[in-house]
């Protein structure tokens, strides 16, 4: 048990990055890639140990660890910050998801990365450290540090190896996320100051802020802080008004990077919402539940409708992830264990499925060098393997039963429908009697639109008669097979046996919801 140290897990990829980037490492492409894949595998297996030794019943954070300065004093004593890490039901799963997807992305980057390999693989590992840090941080200050640390590697990954308007979208991504994190910073400082006023001790520790109700803060203060957090995570999730960076970033990023972007980076937003908005300010979430639910519903329908009209394959998949993330919002707004566990499950499911979708798009782009759907047609003819793998993944994203997406959507919809969050809400002093049940029913319409754009895309790309120019569309190569099969294995396994996943994070959510 003692060899499991979170700091080691988080900074292991950073060590890998330093090894690769050092001058002593050979510049030959194959050696770098093999080392990177090996290292990614080690990190993944190490994170699996954490999952194995994680005991879901034990409440609160596990594997707690605080790193002090050599002098024994906390890391930033004047700021009241100590380098403390901890993991609970939700973050352990997201960390394993991160290591899993990074490993797959490394395997999948064999074909799409052709220049500056050392730089690429080191940036991927730095990104992995940042994201693992975000999930394991038990200290608000650490949360911000890792949150903003992921900006730089992501910027380079999109702008150096991307295609099309790569620099524009990379810059847009950076500014969007940074602007969002600025609001979060203000909100964190506000609650830290409030705690400092009440208790006189200055601390950033998450546990002290879990359940701020004890301080009886004025609602207006709570609402402003809640909105501060919400905007930061809405940019990352993304929620509709702040989502325009996602299609650009996805379209212009290379395949493995957009796999990671969709697979993990969107989850940081969702995780933040749960950790900050739900855990720290539950009453305010109860007051603003209508806002969260309405944004979720808009997210689902608006993005689905746009996805239908998309001509570019990657943009379509990007909008589909925005639509799926709306379900996370819906589950969160439901304010009951079922809804929130649906949100967490949807984050996991969408992570795997959207990574799969981007892998498929990458496979197609690699062979046809085009992402315009009208130009693609009848690709399934002489590549049955790719067709069937992408069919399973597409159906997974559709929410087909016995695949991972279904259990997530069911939990979210059942939870949201049966929640007592609100039966009507105030819109500028007028009482609008539209209850959460009606909103969930409207959200379920999204299921139809998802089916429309996924199946229509599938039919236009894979079925129908073959274009002559795609004659040599050869079937999946071993690398691609490995990635696709492992993704499908996870989708089918947790689709058939969702208890495997829910048994880990539901107890955590139970204890969390008891607070509210």
């Amino acid at each position, binding site marked *: 048990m003692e060899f499991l140290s979170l700091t080691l897990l988080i900074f292991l990829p950073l060590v890998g990055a330093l090894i690769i980037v050092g001058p002593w490492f050979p510049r030959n492409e194959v050696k770098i890639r093999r080392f990177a894949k090996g290292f990614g595998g080690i990190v993944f297996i190490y994170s699996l140990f954490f999952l194995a030794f994680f005991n879901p019943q034990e409440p609160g954070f596990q594997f707690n660890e605080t790193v002090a300065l050599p002098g024994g004093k906390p890391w930033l004593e004047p700021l009241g910050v100590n380098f403390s890490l901890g993991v609970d039901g939700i973050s352990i799963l997201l960390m394993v998801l991160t290591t899993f997807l990074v490993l797959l992305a490394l395997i999948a980057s064999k074909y799409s990365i052709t220049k500056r390999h050392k730089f690429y693989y080191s940036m991927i590992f730095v990104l992995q450290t940042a994201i693992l840090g975000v999930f394991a941080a038990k200290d608000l200050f650490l949360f911000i540090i890792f949150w903003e640390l992921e900006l730089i590697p992501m910027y380079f990954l999109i702008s150096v190896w991307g295609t099309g308007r790569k620099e524009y979208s990379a810059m847009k991504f950076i500014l969007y996320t940074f602007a969002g994190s600025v609001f979060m910073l203000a909100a964190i400082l506000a609650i830290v*100051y409030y705690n400092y006023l009440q208790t006189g001790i200055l601390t950033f520790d998450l546990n002290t802020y879990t359940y701020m109700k004890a301080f009886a803060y004025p609602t207006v203060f709570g609402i402003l802080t809640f909105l501060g957090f919400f905007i930061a995570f809405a940019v990352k999730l993304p929620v509709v008004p702040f989502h325009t960076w996602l299609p650009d970033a996805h379209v212009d990023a290379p395949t493995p990077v957009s796999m990671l972007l969709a697979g993990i980076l969107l989850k940081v937003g969702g995780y933040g919402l749960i950790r900050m908005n739900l855990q720290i300010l539950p009453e305010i979430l109860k007051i603003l539940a209508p806002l969260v639910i309405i944004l979720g519903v808009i997210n689902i329908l608006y993005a689905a409708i746009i996805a239908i009209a998309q001509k570019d394959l990657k943009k379509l998949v990007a909008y589909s992830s925005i639509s799926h993330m709306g379900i996370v919002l819906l589950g969160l707004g439901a304010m009951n264990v079922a809804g929130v566990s649906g949100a967490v499950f949807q984050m996991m499911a969408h992570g795997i499925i959207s990574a799969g979708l981007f892998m498929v798009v990458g496979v197609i782009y690699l062979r046809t060098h085009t992402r315009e759907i009208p130009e693609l047609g009848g690709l399934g003819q002489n590549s049955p393997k790719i067709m069937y793998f992408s069919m399973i993944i597409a159906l997974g994203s559709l929410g087909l039963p016995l695949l991972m997406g279904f259990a997530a959507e069911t939990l979210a919809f059942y939870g949201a429908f049966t929640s007592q969050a609100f039966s009507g809400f105030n819109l*500028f002093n007028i009482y609008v009697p539209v209850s959460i049940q009606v909103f969930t029913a409207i959200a379920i319409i999204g299921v139809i639109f998802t089916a429309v754009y996924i199946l229509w895309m599938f039919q236009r790309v894979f079925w129908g008669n073959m274009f002559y120019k795609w004659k040599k569309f050869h079937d999946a190569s071993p690398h691609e097979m490995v990635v696709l099969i492992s993704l499908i294995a996870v989708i089918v396994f947790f689709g058939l046996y969702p208890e495997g996943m829910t048994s880990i994070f539901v107890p955590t959510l139970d204890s969390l919801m008891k607070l509210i």
Partner: protein
Amino acid sequence: MELLNDIKIALLPESIMVLFIILTAVLSFASGKDRQDAIFYVSLTGVTLALLSMSVMDFSGEKEVLYKSFTSNYFTLVYRVIILAGTIFTLFLTKDYVKGFGKNKGEFYFLLMTASLGAMLLCGANDLIMVFVALETLSISSFALCGYTKSDRLSNEAALKYLVFGAAASAAMLYGFSFIYGITARTNLQEISGFLSTYEVNSILIIAFLLVLAGFGFKIAAVPFQSWAPDVYEGAPIPVAAYLSVVSKTAGFAVLIRFMTVLFPGVAIFSIILATFAVITMTAGNLTALGQRNIRRLMAYSSIAHAGYILLGLAILTNDGITAMTFYLITYLFMNFGVWAAIEILALATGKDNIDDFSGLGKKYGYFSLGLTLCLLSLAGIPVTAGFFSKFYLFKAVAVAGYEFMPVLVITLVNTVIALFYYMRIIRVIYLKPEPEIRHERVFRIALPVKFVMAICVAGVLLLGIFASPVIEKSGVINTTSQGIAVNQPPVSSQPPLLTSSPCLLTSPPLLASPNDGCGY
């Protein structure tokens, strides 16, 4: 004899500096053209000796010397260390840059050391006259430094502008001093603060304060006194520009801190004045920096923006604020010299200083561009670098100073977003733009001391990030002195005043709120 005693207890570093100034002056006149390089080593030893001498002195209490016109306390120690460190870095930068100065190389060091002497005196100046004299030694020698390369037309023009603007600003400051003297009939700061504590703040005092602020604003390049900075940074030789951006700014802040803590402790109207100055400065600095093509002008505007952030620390009038300022200045020293060293390396190699000339460096010169990127990210305030920690500590100080500063805090945060844009543009050029054909490869290797400076700065940027807390403790300058500022407890209002005047300030309910509880709307 009394003078010797004074030197021993308070003025040791200054006296060592004077000694070496005289030595360099004599050497530069006496020795011929070819042996001018030796003078660099003389001045280097002088400055390091002054720096080391401070370890021998005792800085526990307040030591007033020269008829109470100069005090030496912990505050002055920290700021003198920053100034001397900045001088050392500038010396290293000039070692190779000096080839372009023609025959009288030695004088440069002589002027540089006098400027640093002026800056050190300014930190501890306790009398209006001493403040004026120290400030003028610093300014006049930096005017001369700025115009040093007589052959280069731009440097002359910059020097002229610098001189005219500086003289006007110091004249305004003097005018302010005259009114302060008029009201209190005293020139010693302690006596004035004694008199002013009973004196009710009236409009003359405000005007006098503003005039004085003009002088100091000029030094730290705060808006509206910052117009000189871009032209001087672009025109002056690179080491001088670096020197101005760090050392003279630190001295400006030192005297501003002494004024605010000694002369006007805790006056509400002045904190509002400073807060407005801070906000205007940072916003103007960041906005104008957006469209910059020349790296040196960009660095000027970035230094203006950073002056705005640091000024904010002063505006909140708490010990925390001043500690945050000091720590910010320490990290600023490393960040800025790192970037200026990079600029100098490129200037020596290609002679150009446009941002586009940095294109394609990322591919070949891995370490150089990595170092420059780290310094730029630190200026932008991205985590892991010291810049983030100093900014965060400043934000925490502002947040803890009370709720009325929350809007100011939000504006500052938005400014950091704008700032990120123009720093990232440089990084983008380094890593993404293709390599231009003509670049003199071999020259990159000559500038050894400059590389040494850059290496130290990059190390400083990283280490200050990780080991920030011991340095922050060291830079807690104020709570040791007996000044009238409330030491580090929370301000008097326990409830957030701004937001709880009526329990639900927002009379209309938040846009989409469920009616079941909250403020009962």
